[in-house]
């Protein structure tokens, strides 16, 4: 069963956080191991497996990027594993330039401004996705998701850089 079906939601890019929460909480009320403490081992094991699957589904669908990647994979778009080499030369250049800029930033303000640009880019790229999904343009979806994944990672690296600057480690 795919994550959308498990939560009884339509397999779509656009998902209201409130309706996801509602579906998730209702099913966890039914399956969470806390509800099965006094039940036989078999039932406990089943509940635990069900609750674990729900948690996996929830976690995947909660964030727009992981949801988009998951949906793309359901549609047959193949993405390289996380952390693997980037095979798009254009993106590679962008990544290298951005990393260098981040590495050269020595003030919180500089890092914040880089992070802000990355976030804006991320939002823009996310906003582009529905159109690509609608057109079912798989190569374009793949390209967009790889870039989004990088932008997301960059935001995390910016956070690390910021923490280091604040602690005077740079």
């Amino acid at each position, binding site marked *: 069963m795919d994550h959308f079906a498990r939560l009884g939601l339509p397999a779509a890019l656009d998902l209201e956080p409130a309706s996801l929460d509602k579906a998730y909480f209702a099913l966890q009320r039914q399956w969470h191991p806390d509800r099965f403490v006094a039940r036989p081992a078999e039932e406990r094991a089943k509940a635990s497996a069900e609750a674990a699957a729900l948690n996996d589904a929830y976690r995947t669908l909660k964030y727009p990027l992981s949801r988009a990647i998951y949906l793309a994979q359901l549609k047959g778009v193949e993405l390289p594993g996380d952390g693997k080499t980037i095979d798009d030369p254009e993106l590679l250049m962008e990544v290298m330039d951005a990393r260098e800029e981040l590495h050269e930033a020595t003030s919180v303000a500089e890092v914040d401004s880089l992070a802000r640009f990355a976030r804006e880019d991320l939002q823009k790229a996310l906003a582009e996705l529905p159109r690509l999904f609608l057109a079912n343009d798989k190569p374009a979806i793949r390209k967009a998701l790889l870039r989004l994944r990088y932008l997301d990672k960059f935001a995390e690296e910016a956070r690390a850089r910021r923490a280091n600057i604040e*602690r005077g480690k740079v």
Partner: protein
Amino acid sequence: MTLLDIHEPGETPLPHAGEGTLAVGIDLGTTNSVVAIAREGKPAALHDEGGRALVPSVVAYPASGGVIVGDEARLLMAKEPRNVVASVKRLMGRGAADLHAVAGVLPYEIEAGTGQTDMVKLRIGGKPRSPVEISAEILRALRTRAEAALEKPVERAVITVPAYFDDAARTATRDAARVAGLEVLRLVNEPTAAALAYGLDKGSEGLYAVYDLGGGTFDFSLLRLEKGVFQVLATGGDTALGGDDFDRTIAERMLAERKKDGLGNAIDEAAVKTALALARQMKEQLSERDQTSGRLEIAGVPSFHALTRTEFDSMIAAYVARTLEIARHVLADAGMKADEIHGIVLVGGSTRVPLVRTEVAELAGKPPLVDIDPDEVVALGAALQAEALTGGSDTLLLDVTPLSLGLETMGGLVEKVVPRNTPIPVQLAQEFTTYQDGQSAMAIHVVQGEREMVDDCRSLARFELLGIPPMTAGAARIRVTFAVDADGLLTVSAEERTTGVQQRIEVKPSYGLSHDDMADMLYDSLENAEDDMARRLLAEAKVEAKRNLLAIDAALAKDGALLTAGERGELDAARARVGKAVEGTDRDEINAAAEALETLSKPFAEKRMDRGIREALSGLSVQDLEGRVGN
């Protein structure tokens, strides 16, 4: 006590009401422990005859025989120091390697463990005793207290643990309960329990933060409360930060003052303990007034020390700032901002310090919630959860893993399988493959922590997946599954997918981490992410280069005859350069050498491909060809 249970129409009777045993909530603390019970959603701490709820977590094995727990045990401390243990919680799940760090803190003779686990033992009352046994005595005393107060047998409990307790410490806590004859219904994280106590009391909704500063540890958790659902969004902390640090700064200042006055020559361990005890008193007084003073007597020589709250505040400012920094990171992990916090709950005795309260209020932009006694709030929440688990309730507690769980991959890197703050229970799998042709076994090394390199994370377990059938490198598909149950305990299994060879292991921790490593591991992922990135890139470059070397070697062994002596010489030189580079730490050199080798080997690869095609076309069998190449 009720003799007959009468239920309102429509109300379900408790499923276990007939069994006559009750489920309690226990806060098994480092300094003090508390047991509580909840009935119909109303929790209460259980008191002794003297009206005290707190049981000092001190165990004595007096020379006269028997075991004493609590206040009386503490009184024995001065008289029979070798027979009394305090703060044993710090040793739960700790191994021999952790010892040097606690040696100065805990004045006990400590022995490395033997046999199945290497958890430490303490030589107390002339016998080696494990932290599990000693904790079990505390739990037994709490159980006795509960049975006396409730006049019913108590056999089940919810026990709280710091959110940041790792797998080893959680397992040890569960074992201690078992030794004390208690069935653990659930291990609940302390901050979560505290939120439960507040949330149920007030029917609150929205984003809540729990700031838990105890004697030796700090936890910060963010929860969302919604219609009886307690959803932990993120948690973080430091296992080596707490009120003890405040005491130490005061004690150090007093000892420095003595030294300045020429009284500093006779400072031994006992003197430090005396100074710490006085420091603690002064700290507590400064929660009530603006200044205090103390008289410190070491080796019969007294000295007098004054301390104002302003001075004290500046002495502890760095520690408090560190807690706020952790809090901000947890907020960022949850994707929330401080001004979205609806209420902030204070837990732990150290939150009585006024500076802590003002700083926390400033972070959240509102006064913290303090109407439940910070020493009791965790036990009260645990009692509510115990009632919910046995009696059924509408409350739902959704907790998360505090630390990432992963596996060692090539080059000493960590591949995270379960990231921190993943809701539990959870089962996640990742596929790995073999590194060498014909590899028949794969070592699985399970680690916990946020860093990118294995050496910086805590090692939880090692096992080996055997019996992988011979395949070329990269063909095997080894699926490693991590399952974390609702108590936060981990099971790991591995399976080779093409053949179904399977192995499963309950993680029995290897306890090999020093206290300092532990403290570092817990919340420094962010601060070290940059260094880690550089190390990761280096490790990846090495792995890639070594992989290329193996491939070249295999090709040379098979088709070396295709090369002229000159070509072979050049290739060997390029090969040697890569071999040398991977032993070093210069990533640019590794990459340059690898690239040079790749360029040089291209014609060779083309020749091999050409021949492969010719041979395929010539219709000879593979064996024939192999035989010919061999000659």
